[in-house]
């Protein structure tokens, strides 16, 4: 019995979402009175023993370069082998792009029940019940996993990452890896930007910005806050912003610490993607905008006047320390 945590990497580095699942998986192992181990596929430049500071005792590595690229079919086979080899009965993924591609495949291969989009530690007092978001963030469901092996994929930004002390033992796992049936012909990474689902702070713009040429005020604020940027659906549809920034029921669902909405009315479909944010700030010139009902703080005013002031005031606060 153990909890096996899948750690994913891109371009030789382990990403923030993995530290969150490591912390979560280690806490789950403590709760169940068992040990937490990590699994990494491919090769990385990072120090794997250092993952011990998130609470894992062992890191299994399948150091095969074919696995530096995510192919769900190969990954599922290798991860399932690792689960069997390590005797794990719980497997944890991040519900990020890689997790979405791979976790359900692994679950089907192992005939293991899966809760994807989990947002809290399971209740293991009576069975194994995991809370997840449903209806695009408008509600939660408590789901019981009834199979011997259990798979969880955790919504990014739902568990607080804690780094302590400790080093993990790194062990090589030899698993045969097939040739990939997929040929990758191009990879375009959006570099220098904070990935939306991992961001602590998100600044988002709606139709109230009037056009793509006006995004400067928003970008200045985002830069000052080291925030990721997002937008409402009509903004993505009109190509004012790239469509991967579209948040909401039919876009990306996020749960940052702080969500700042500029010129967004707060339609129910928009709220569905952002209402798990811890703090919501709304700036809108219409006092009747529905978004104010879902907000913690608000300013009724013209964003083109308010936002530059806000950026200035944050600068001042930072300068004052």
């Amino acid at each position: 019995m153990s909890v096996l945590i899948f750690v994913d990497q891109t371009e030789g580095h382990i990403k923030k979402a993995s530290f969150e699942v490591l912390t979560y998986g280690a806490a789950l192992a403590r709760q169940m009175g068992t040990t937490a181990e990590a699994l990494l596929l491919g090769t990385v430049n990072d120090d794997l023993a250092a993952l011990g500071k998130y609470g894992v005792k062992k890191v299994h590595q399948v150091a095969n370069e074919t696995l530096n690229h995510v192919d769900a079919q190969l990954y599922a086979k290798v991860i399932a082998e690792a689960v069997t080899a390590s005797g794990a009965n719980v497997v944890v993924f991040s519900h990020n792009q890689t997790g979405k591609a791979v976790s359900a495949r692994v679950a089907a291969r192992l005939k293991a029940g899966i809760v994807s989009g989990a947002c809290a530690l399971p209740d293991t007092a009576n069975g194994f019940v995991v809370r997840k978001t449903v209806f695009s963030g408008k509600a939660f469901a408590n789901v019981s996993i009834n199979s011997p092996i259990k798979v969880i994929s955790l919504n990014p930004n739902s568990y607080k990452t804690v780094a302590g002390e400790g080093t993990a033992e790194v062990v090589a796992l030899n698993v045969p890896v097939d040739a990939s049936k997929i040929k990758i012909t191009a990879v375009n990474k959006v570099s220098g930007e904070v990935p939306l689902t991992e961001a602590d702070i998100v600044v988002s713009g709606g139709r109230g910005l009037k056009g793509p040429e006006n995004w400067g005020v928003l970008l200045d604020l985002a830069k000052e806050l080291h925030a990721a940027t997002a937008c409402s659906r009509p903004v993505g549809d009109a190509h004012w912003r790239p469509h991967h920034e579209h948040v909401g029921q039919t876009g990306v669902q996020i749960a940052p610490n702080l969500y700042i909405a500029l010129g967004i009315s707060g339609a129910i479909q928009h709220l569905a993607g952002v209402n798990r944010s811890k703090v919501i700030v709304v700036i809108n010139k219409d006092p009747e905008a529905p978004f104010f009902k879902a907000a913690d703080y608000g300013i009724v005013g013209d964003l083109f006047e308010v936002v530059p002031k806000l950026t200035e005031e944050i600068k001042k606060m930072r300068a004052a320390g």
Partner: protein
Amino acid sequence: MKILVCVSKTPDTTSKIAFTNGNTKFDEAGVQWIINPYDEWYALVRAIELKEKDAAVTIHLVTVGLADCDPIIRKALALGGDEAIRVNADNSDSFYIAAQIADVARQGAYDLILTGKETIDYNGSSIGGMVAELVDAPYLSLATLFELNGTTATITREIEGGEEVAEVSLPVVVSCQKGVAEQRIPNMRGIMAARTKPLKVVEPAAIEALTSIMSYELPPAKAGVKLVSPDNVAELVRLLHEEAKAI
């Protein structure tokens, strides 16, 4: 060339979300049902576009659900598609659903299986990956572009921190999102034609569900918004820093 499109019935995006039976059942009172937007706007429409280019393409739709799914299946058939298969079962476990679809998929020997990236009710994003595993085909998730050239598919898909372009030989399972196609409205001819298209009802295979929903909860209500005057933006910064500790 045979395409299988997985479609699912979901509550309309404006539906009030509430629960009954001691929070164990979704309250369907007054709910309008739609085809899951990702299944309809992207997966199904892309399949229809492929058929418009090549008359030799056959499109089958599959859904796992009870007879109350029939109206949305008819609507999907009105958009396009040649016939539909409904597996007559009611279950929310993703493995159960995927295993039923995989059964249909094996029998139909499809070249291409398309799904939406997730359903807007259970948000599992699991079915595509599971079906791919069960039929042992490559899986390309979160596609934003899909092109077909003979038996080779070229897919642009979202990955961690960006996107990639992948080439793969059929058969393949692809989950679709925005970019793959544009939403369409069914026309009168399509609606008339849909009435006579075959909708086959098949009984489910004996599959054990691996999960079950115990209860639902609504998020706690917000305490109410604190409004700050536009002339006192510094106060908002102070509140965010000192009270909310968010910056």
